[in-house]
């Protein structure tokens, strides 16, 4: 179980108006939790806290009752971002970017339709949908158990969106991954989630 317990967070100098004020949230293995709320309400910030990129100013982020930073090796909670072009090193060919995250199973490459030829290209030479496939492959290391999906299909066209989500649902089912899905689209959340939380 991945949990945020009474989490409070404010950015530097904004102590009086915290982005998150005593927020509670939990995601169980195999569960797909939708997270929605108006822009600026702290959805992305909550994901960053759950993935360990930031520490809460008060409250705790726990994975199976343990603090997230007590886990060694690849972090079992991985985040997938809204803009894939901002999270891939622009100066590395994508094959190298993937290597940095450890070997990716050939099965995944096939299921995600990542073509051999893309591995030698640079991020600027691929479309958003193609890059997002790399981000997924990179995040699906065998020791990963929770995925935080922050608007991962908002920039994609409908066909690509459906391709990526159909893959991810299957993979989540197979590995009993817990998913936190941030989106503004009620239709999409309705299609994907087992439970929806409003922030």
């Amino acid at each position, binding site marked *: 179980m991945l949990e945020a317990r009474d989490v409070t967070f404010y950015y530097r100098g904004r102590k009086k108006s915290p982005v998150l004020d005593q927020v509670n949230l939990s995601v169980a293995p195999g569960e797909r939790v939708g997270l929605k*709320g108006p*822009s600026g309400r702290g959805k992305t910030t909550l994901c960053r806290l759950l993935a360990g990129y930031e520490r809460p100013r008060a409250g705790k982020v726990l994975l199976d009752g343990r603090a997230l930073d007590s886990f060694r090796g690849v972090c079992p909670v991985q985040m997938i971002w809204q803009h894939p072009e901002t999270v891939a090193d622009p100066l590395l060919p994508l094959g190298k970017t993937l290597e940095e995250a450890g070997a990716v199973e050939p099965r995944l490459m096939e299921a995600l339709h990542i073509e051999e030829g893309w591995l030698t290209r640079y991020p600027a030479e691929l479309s958003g949908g193609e890059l997002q496939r790399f981000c997924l492959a990179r995040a699906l290391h065998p020791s990963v158990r929770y995925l935080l999906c922050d*608007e991962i299909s908002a920039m994609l066209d*409908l*066909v*690509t969106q*459906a*391709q990526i989500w159909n893959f991810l649902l299957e993979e989540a089912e197979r590995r009993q991954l817990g998913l936190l899905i941030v989106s503004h689209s009620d*239709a999409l959340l309705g*299609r994907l989630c087992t439970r929806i939380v409003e922030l």
Partner: protein
Amino acid sequence: MKPILEIENLSIDFIQYERGLRRRSLPVIRDLSLTVEAGQVVAVVGASGSGKSLLAHAILDILPYNSRREGIIRYDGEELTQERIQKLRGREIVLVPQGVNYLDPLMKVGPQLRKGSRDAQTKKKYLDALGRYGLDDAVQELYPFELSGGMARRVLIASAVAESPRLVIADEPTPGLDVSSAARILAHFRELAEGGAGVLLITHDLETALAAADRVAVFYAGETIEEAAAGDFAAEELLRHPFTQALWNAMPQHGFHPIPGAQPYPGETKEGCPFARQCGGCTEDCQTGSIPLRGFRGGLVRCLHPERVQKRNGQDG
């Protein structure tokens, strides 16, 4: 009445160097025609990489230096020359850019919007524009990095429409916005149209397009493949091109079924229909020559067999 924007046979090529001095030309938009009437919202929908943003940049003459443009763009009945667009852009013709990184990162929002003016009238104009999108005075004192994605987007929109434009080109104005903010922005585009402006709404999101537009043009690999009334998207059978139908079927509320594959890269399709690789109904004659855009049941379609698309669906349903 003269249409406010007319684009005729627009083609855009990028000149690239491969190995030393050998040049090659990469066609990214081919033979594109589009009309926006005053009082209309026209949406351009397509996959990423289909050339949607380049269309906006071509109108505003802000294409990169290594590109070549052919075809005619007319504004208000007269050709939009380089001198003319330089006078009009930012005043009569405005762009709502796609990236939130179009804001100057080193300048606070307020001064950035006012472009240096300090008089009370200008201040009030932009305060009203921000207020219309639910942003308050305090936002003017923030730097762009302090804004959330949705707030930055609303600042960009406020900046564009405060000038009471006649042609608004909105490049992906709504991703990252919650449903109510997005609806407010789309409603305002409609208002602008009702006041006599033309709006060109560029988006990959069919739902957004349908919520605001009168007509929808669908892009695929740099070509218009269908132009339809927004009402045609009520049912799959009313659509004309197999790719438009694929988009419809991939909507979360219509089955969420993707077709396999992706659109070809620029320059990959030498002749024939660019959609051939993904199309279930591709025949031999689809593979050669160029496919013309033609009228079909009150819309336009670039497909040799739109009637077969109809029949197939008739059988399925």
